[in-house]
C-alpha cells in the first residue's frame, strides 16, 4: 500500500508510469510534476517543496483514479449509495478524505490528504457503458481488494484499466440475448392476460424490433431515435391482432409489444438514489428514463396512427 513519508516519491513515480502505460489521461501532467520533484530531490534543493509537489501529484493521481472509477460505476448502472460505499472503503485505506458531486453527465471528486493541507479536484465524464451488473460486481470487488490491502494503488489502477477495456468480455452475444428477451416479452404478455396468439404476436414484434435495435446500435445511432424506431416497428407488428383478428386479446398484444424497450433500470435506480437522498443523480436518471419513455410513446403512437386503429 502507499503510505506517506520517505518512500512516497518512488511509489508515485511507479504509479504515474502505470498511468502513462495504461493510456490514462492526466498521467502526463503528474509525470512532469514528479519528474521535477525527483530532480529537486537529486540536487538536494527545495526538498520540502518537492515533497509537497509529490504529495499533490499523488493526490491528483488517486483523485483521477477515483473520478474514473465513479464515472465507470455510474456508467454501468450502479446506485449512488454503492458508489459512495466503494469509494469510501478505498479512500479510508489511503488515509484521505473525499467528497463527490454527481452531475447528469459528469462526476466531480474532491480529495484531500488526512491533514487537509492539500486538496485536489478531478472531474470525469460518466462513461458510456451498457448496464452491466457483471462490471458493477467486479468494480465493487476491486474496492474490497484495495480496502483489504490485497492490491496496492498501482495494481488497482492496472486492474481498473483492464476491467474497463475488457468490459464486454464474457458477455452474452446480442443475438442470444435477443432470444431470451423474445421469450421474456412473450411471457410478459401472458402475465398480463394475453392468449397464445397474442404471445406469438408479441414474440414476433419483439424479435423484429430487437433485431433492428441491434443493427442500429451497431451503426452507433443515438439511443433516442433507436427507441422511437423500434417502438414504431414493434407496434406495427403488434397491431396485427387488431387488423387480422388473430387474437382475442389484441389490446394486450399491442400494449406488451414495446415493453422490452422500457428503461426499467434507470427508473429503479432513480428511485433508489432519491431514497438515499442523492436527489440530483436520482432526478437526472429519472429524466433519462422519461425521455426514452417519451420516445417509445411517440413511436408507438406513430405506429397506431399508421395502422389506423380504431382505438385512436
Amino acid at each position, binding site marked *: 500500500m502507499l503510505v506517506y513519508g520517505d518512500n512516497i516519491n518512488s511509489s508515485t513515480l511507479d504509479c504515474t508510469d502505470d498511468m502513462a502505460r495504461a493510456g490514462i489521461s492526466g498521467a502526463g501532467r503528474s509525470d512532469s510534476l514528479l519528474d521535477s520533484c525527483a530532480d529537486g530531490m537529486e540536487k538536494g534543493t527545495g526538498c520540502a517543496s518537492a515533497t509537497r509537489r509529490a504529495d499533490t501529484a499523488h493526490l491528483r493521481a488517486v483523485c483521477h483514479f477515483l473520478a474514473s472509477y465513479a464515472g465507470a460505476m455510474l456508467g454501468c448502472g450502479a446506485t449512488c449509495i454503492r458508489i459512495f460505499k466503494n469509494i469510501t472503503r478505498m479512500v479510508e485505506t489511503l488515509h484521505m478524505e473525499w467528497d463527490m458531486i454527481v452531475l447528469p453527465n459528469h462526476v466531480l471528486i474532491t480529495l484531500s490528504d488526512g491533514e487537509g493541507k492539500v486538496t485536489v479536484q478531478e472531474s470525469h465524464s460518466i462513461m458510456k457503458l451498457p448496464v452491466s*451488473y457483471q462490471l458493477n*460486481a467486479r468494480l465493487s470487488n476491486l*474496492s474490497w481488494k484495495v480496502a483489504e490491502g490485497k492490491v496496492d494503488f498501482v495494481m488497482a489502477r492496472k486492474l481498473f484499466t483492464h476491467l474497463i477495456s475488457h468490459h464486454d468480455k464474457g458477455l452474452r452475444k446480442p443475438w442470444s440475448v435477443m432470444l*431470451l428477451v423474445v421469450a*421474456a416479452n412473450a411471457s*410478459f404478455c401472458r402475465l398480463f392476460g394475453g392468449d397464445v396468439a397474442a404471445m406469438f404476436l408479441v414474440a414476433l414484434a419483439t424479435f423484429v424490433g430487437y433485431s433492428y435495435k441491434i443493427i442500429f446500435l451497431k451503426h452507433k445511432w443515438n439511443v433516442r431515435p433507436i427507441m422511437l424506431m423500434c417502438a414504431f416497428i414493434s407496434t406495427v407488428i403488434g397491431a396485427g391482432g387488431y387488423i387480422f383478428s388473430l387474437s382475442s386479446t389484441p389490446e394486450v398484444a399491442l400494449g406488451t409489444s414495446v415493453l422490452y424497450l*422500457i428503461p426499467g433500470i434507470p427508473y*429503479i435506480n432513480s*428511485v433508489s438514489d432519491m431514497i438515499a437522498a442523492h436527489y440530483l443523480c436520482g432526478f437526472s436518471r429519472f429524466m433519462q428514463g422519461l425521455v426514452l419513455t417519451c420516445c417509445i410513446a411517440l413511436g408507438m403512437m406513430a405506429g397506431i396512427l399508421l395502422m389506423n386503429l380504431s382505438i385512436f
Partner: protein
Amino acid sequence: MDVLFKIFQDAFFAAVAAIGFASISNPPRGALKYCALIAATGHATRFCLLNYAGVHIVAASLAGALLIGILAVWLAPKIKCPPEAFSYPALLPMIPGMYAYHALQAFILSLSAHGEDEFQHLFYLSESNAVICIFIILAMVIGQMLPILVFKRRSFTSTR
C-alpha cells in the same frame, strides 16, 4: 388443483420474463438462475395476494417486492455480486405495463375528445391508471430497497 396450476404458471412466466430482462443488464455468470427463482417467488406471492386474499395491487406489489429484496440480499454473497443484480430484473415482471399503456392511450384520446364530458372521462381514465401505475412502481422499488438498507452490512459486503 386449478389454483396450484395457475400459481405455478404465473411463477413460470415470471421466471422466464426475469431471465430475459436480466440478460439485458449483463448479470454475472450464475446469477440468472437466482433471478428466475426470486422473480418466480415474488410474482407468485403477488399473484396469490391479489387473486386469493383480496389485497390491493399496490400492497400486493409491496409484499412481492419485499420478498424479492430479502431473497436478493440473502443470496447475493453466495455468488459475490450486488443484490441489485438479482432484485432489479426480478422486479421487472411486476412493472405495471398495461396500466401505463392505458394511461397513455386515454391521455392521447383526450386530445380528440368532443365536449367536456368526454374529455373529463378520458382524463379521469388517464389519471387513475397513471396514479395506480406510479404507486405500484414506488411500492416495488421501496419494497426491494428496504432489505438492502436494513441489512446494509450484508448488502454492501456481498461483493467482497
